[in-house]
């Protein structure tokens, strides 16, 4: 009679490998999707000196893909705290782009932590906004952010932005 032990062990090993591989693949996919989303946010806010701000309707279209219907902003430093619709955020971006000659938003040190259920994820990152304003010249600002991304209809959307105060005056 053939012993079942090695057969069972190899089956278990195979199952474990498949489970680990699928877990990694799923996690990576969502991680990549969120990173791509951050890249879209970068390009939505950034403005090259050669380009003019995009029309409002296009910005709203971009914002609807990026932000949840009610996106919460918690900011201790500036007076931006509140809940915004994608339209309101698009208007904010356009108003900002109207005040600058060029701007570049970039995210650094991005760490993504998925919450149980994998429908929400916290993104911990450092945002850098660098450019040239029409009135005050060059600007270069850093903010440490915690962004909550929520999965809505199989699409990730940013639903909360929290500005973390690293240094407290």
């Amino acid at each position: 009679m053939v012993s079942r032990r090695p057969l069972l062990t190899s089956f278990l090993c195979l199952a474990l490998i498949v489970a680990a591989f699928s877990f990694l693949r799923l996690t990576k996919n969502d991680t990549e999707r969120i990173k791509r989303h951050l890249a879209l946010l970068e390009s939505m806010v950034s403005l090259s000196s050669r380009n003019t701000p995009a029309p409002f309707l296009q910005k709203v279209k971009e914002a609807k893909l990026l932000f949840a219907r009610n996106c919460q902003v918690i900011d201790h430093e500036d007076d931006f705290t509140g809940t915004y619709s994608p339209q309101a955020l698009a208007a904010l971006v356009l108003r900002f782009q109207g005040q600058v000659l060029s701007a570049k938003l970039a995210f650094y040190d991005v760490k993504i932590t998925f919450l149980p259920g994998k429908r929400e994820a916290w993104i911990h990152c450092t945002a850098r906004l660098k450019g040239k304003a029409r009135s005050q010249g060059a600007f270069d600002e850093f903010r440490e952010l915690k962004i909550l991304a929520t999965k809505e209809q199989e699409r990730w959307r940013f639903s909360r932005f929290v500005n973390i105060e690293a240094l407290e005056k």
Partner: protein
Amino acid sequence: MDRSGYKHFLFPKLTKATLLRMVLITVGAYLFFSRVCIPVRVDGISMEPTYHPGDFTFCCRVPYFFHPPRVGDIVFIRMSGWKVMYMKRVIALPGDRVAFRNGYLYVNGKLRQEDYVTTPSNWDLTPRKVKPGHVYVVGDNRKIPIGDQVFGQVPISRVVGKVLW
């Protein structure tokens, strides 16, 4: 070293020992420059005139393995990671009271001489106590209006290291 010696030094035979040495040097260098002594390029004017934009230095973590930050140390403060960090000077330790009057720094009610500040300043800040486990950090450039300069107390756990030079 003669010609063949140089050749042997630069292009050694690929033996097991050579490969092992190469791997060890690569891993060692990676760990050293990513964990112990991190290369940093200064970007921004908050530490002028001590450091200018474009200056190059290292963030050395070794000193803080043995003792906490000290007054006068120029330290690096992490944000969400180590790619972008604040570079500031420690001016007060836990429990100290910090204030600015007419651009002069007062710690525990006493005027602190700051030789590294060369520009006149009009900073005014009401006294505040540094929390336990925190240090108070400020940039050397006090020409920047107080509202535009990023400074304040920060948990010691956020201090990554100090400048090497």
